[in-house]
């Protein structure tokens, strides 16, 4: 359970970091290390070059602008949890962070690391997808932005090249969401989710005008349930609508692993969406 050998680099600026990525193809960026270090210790990954981003200037910030909440990729999960700006603009991120590992791992773990690792059960990719985040990645040659919906290509495979680094996660602010809810089913506190769901609703006169529904841990990558969103919009915010949304969510094709069958995950997808909607609408769970 010891990492294989590697060449260690400790850049101090983004330009230096990007230069190292361009120069060394077999590389990994070490962010908070709460996923990469276990994978290296177990030798699932053995990068020739390990590029430590922990001393890079200018990647640890939370900035409020008129239309965006901008978060540096190396901002730690603990910092996000303590941020008033995060709680104000993205209240569900604050709620979801309580389910990210344990306080000891949140002291090190970063938002950028979580997005690049892209575990299907991870909470921060789910929340980024829910809020339609915009991600900025840079290589030595170019800077580009990717929408959160285009970020997951496949299982644990984000849309980022080996010479690129995730620099910033920008969350749109000022959307008129009136209700929000999150639910996660896990075996124990801090454990990987079996199913998780996050819901944003905009309700006026008892009618759902706008809806965003994201599901985690059920499919190979976190996903938006656009069919459930379409079903919710225009309906009354009541038990009948929740029941219809739950039934629709439980139709999703789920994956199985050594612990949970596809059938179980599929059922739990419905339960997670139902409970997230109940949390959003302040309704008690009857499940």
């Amino acid at each position, binding site marked *: 359970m*010891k990492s294989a050998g590697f060449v*260690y680099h400790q850049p101090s600026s983004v330009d230096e970091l990007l230069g190292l990525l361009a120069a060394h193809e077999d590389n990994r960026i070490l962010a908070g290390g*709460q996923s990469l270090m276990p994978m290296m210790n177990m030798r699932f990954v053995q990068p020739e070059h390990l590029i430590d981003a922990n001393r890079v200037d200018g990647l640890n910030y939370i900035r409020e602008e008129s239309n965006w909440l901008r978060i540096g990729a190396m901002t730690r999960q603990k910092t996000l949890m303590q941020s008033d700006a995060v709680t104000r603009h993205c209240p569900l991120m604050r709620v979801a962070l309580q389910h990210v590992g344990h306080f*000891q*791992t949140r002291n090190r773990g970063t938002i950028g690391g979580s997005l690049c690792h892209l575990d299907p059960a991870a909470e921060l990719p789910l929340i980024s997808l829910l809020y339609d985040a915009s991600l900025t990645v840079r290589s030595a040659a170019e800077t580009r932005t990717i929408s959160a919906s285009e970020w997951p290509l496949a299982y644990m495979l984000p849309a980022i090249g080996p010479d690129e680094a995730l620099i910033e996660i920008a969350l749109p602010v000022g959307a008129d969401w009136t209700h929000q809810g999150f639910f996660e089913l896990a075996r*124990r*506190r801090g454990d990987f989710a079996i199913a998780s769901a996050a819901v944003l609703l905009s309700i006026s006169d008892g009618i759902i005008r706008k809806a965003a529904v994201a599901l985690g841990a059920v499919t190979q990558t976190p996903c938006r349930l656009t069919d459930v969103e379409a079903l919710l919009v225009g309906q009354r915010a009541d038990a009948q609508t929740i029941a219809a949304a739950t039934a629709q969510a439980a139709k999703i094709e789920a994956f199985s692993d050594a612990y949970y069958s596809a059938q179980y995950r599929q059922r739990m997808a419905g339960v997670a969406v139902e409970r997230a909607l109940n949390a959003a609408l302040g309704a008690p769970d009857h499940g």
Partner: protein
Amino acid sequence: MDDTRAIHFTLNGKAEECDAPVRFHLGDLLREKFGLTGTHLGCEHGVCGACTVLVDGEAVRSCLMLGVQVDGCEVVTVEGLADPDSRLHPLQQAFAEKHGLQCGYCTPGMLMSLAAFLAENRDPSEDDIRDAISGNICRCTGYQPIVEAALLAAQRMRNASEG
């Protein structure tokens, strides 16, 4: 590949320096270079919590940090928890009184996690304590005596700071 880096850091209040092999995680560095075997290595992939130490006051898993990353940092291990005159930390005292340990393998991690947690949460509920140690696995005690010890230590620490 057997690269080393010269690092300087504070370890249990004392300035230290060493040539750290870059592939050593912090737990390895503490045990192998400094002989501080109080930091226990259980799973080495961040699940068991036995290797928890404080880096700049924050509880972290020492198997998930590289030793070279503590250059310039302040590190506290379980050996640094008691007073210099060897009086036990209130947590250690409460663990002894409440039988908060049996085999003792998880104990250093439990103590360091709780030390960091109580520093930021003076008046925790039982549920808060259970949440704080949810990342530390104990195979012996069933957790109940650990929770009781933590609550007792929290109470004594509050009393001491008020008195």
